């Protein structure tokens, strides 16, 4: 945890140096930096959520009064070390390629007896409403910290999801002619002052994928990968895809395959 904190400090220093000249003229950047520093004072706020998630994982909950300790995230029941880093993957029991969030919901439904609409109601937090899913995903993610992302997509269903994710990545539509690729298909670009990763390369996808779930200073909340990608589509001025939609899982599979080999640093902290 301490090591991670130092890394966060270093990246914040880079951010500050980069944004420095803008301060005099752009008070928004200054506000962001202030929030950034405030957040850093006690380490990454996501660490608290990680602890909460750990509690939720082992607590007996739901109509069946069961914990999630027998949940199989792809490495066997209850095996969480490195589980996040090897998702999404194909699961025989459901016949589907699932990401960490769809698998978690599957476990909450099958092991604990919750109704799907019940557990996904608060899939993201709002001011005054916490999200169990965010906490659990932060906890599961942290169990892959230091592990390389490993989604080779060798199963035919996984390979197919990679191709379908690639299709969605390049698909343009809407009143701004956007696709993921127009911002994330080239090296060394930025939007306003925000650096943009080239998600078609291992390096770019690696930097993007290794730090999720991530505490977002500008949002005051931890975002999961589903939340991140659904919000990208909102920013593209499209309607929001449903939570756990296959097209989001396809994009994740495409990005994780591209990022494969990159060592996870999660939970992250971002703008």
């Amino acid at each position, binding site marked *: 945890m301490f090591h991670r904190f130092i890394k966060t400090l270093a990246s914040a220093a880079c951010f500050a140096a980069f944004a420095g*000249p*803008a301060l005099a*003229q*752009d008070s928004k*950047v200054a506000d962001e930096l202030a929030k950034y520093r405030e957040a850093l004072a006690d380490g990454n706020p996501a660490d608290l959520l990680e602890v909460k998630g750990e509690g939720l994982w082992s607590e007996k909950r739901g109509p069946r009064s069961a914990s999630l300790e027998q949940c199989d995230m792809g490495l066997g029941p209850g095996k969480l070390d490195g589980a996040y880093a090897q998702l999404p993957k194909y699961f025989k029991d459901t016949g589907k390629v699932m990401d960490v969030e769809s698998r978690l919901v599957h476990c909450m439904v099958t092991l604990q007896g919750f109704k799907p609409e019940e557990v996904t109601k608060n899939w*993201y937090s709002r001011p005054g409403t916490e999200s169990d899913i965010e906490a659990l995903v932060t906890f599961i993610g942290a169990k892959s910290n230091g592990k390389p992302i490993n989604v080779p997509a060798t199963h035919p269903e996984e390979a*197919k999801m990679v*191709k*379908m994710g*690639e*299709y*969605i*990545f*390049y*698909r*343009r*539509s*809407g*009143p*701004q*002619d*956007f*696709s993921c*690729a*127009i*911002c994330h*298909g*080239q090296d*060394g*670009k*930025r*939007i*306003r*002052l*925000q650096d*943009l990763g080239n998600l078609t390369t291992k390096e770019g996808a690696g930097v993007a994928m290794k730090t999720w779930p991530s505490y977002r200073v500008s949002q005051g909340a931890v975002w999961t990968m589903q939340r991140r990608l*659904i*919000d990208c589509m*909102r*920013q593209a*001025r*499209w*309607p*929001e*895809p*449903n939570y756990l*939609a*296959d*097209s*989001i899982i*396809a994009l994740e599979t495409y990005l994780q395959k591209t990022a494969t080999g990159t060592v996870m640093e999660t939970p992250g902290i971002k703008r």
Partner: protein
Amino acid sequence: MKTKAASFSSLVAALGIALATPALAQKAAEAPGGQYAREAEQMFRTSFRADNPTYWMTRLEQDETMKTCLQYRDNPPRKIGEKLERLNKATVRYPVDGKLIGDWKEGEKLAAVGTGGHIGFIQPDPAGRLRGGNCYACHELAKKEIAYGTIGPSLREFGKIRGKDEGTIKYVYDKIYNSNAFTACTNMPRFGLHSWLTPEQITHIVAFLIDPESPVNKD
């Protein structure tokens, strides 16, 4: 019969690529999604709530330009690019009074606005929120604004460098109205085609770029 004609024309297109740009031929070999493209489109379309307003869902429609750009990863062979450019050129509409250069001060405001047009349930824009050109997201413009993006080229001192003759004014208007009239599959949105900006608003951004008094060209 129809299939035959289609496969013949795609064969011709494929030959065209091979002949025109041998370096790109390999890259253009497979469209994104490969054999699963059709299924991926279906999957994407069914990812949304069935009770979404119709006008939201129309934002998922693709015109010929969007479809073709997807197929070629925004890098179409020149012949196909030229066809798209002609198609897009024909869509440009002008203000009723015919004046293509407006008020640079209005243009300056529009260049900085990046909000508007967000839909959905999580964080939609309030109805009627100003939609801007959001030019600074991708371009350097006035010297004083240093929070600019680099997806597009720098346009600092555009008017100083390119002049303010009628041809340049028309070019800038047309480019903002429909960027694909000049470069098929460019990253730049087609602001006029989608009615994201009105013709009048476009004339203001033209002025922001070209007027010698605009901060793009002064200081």
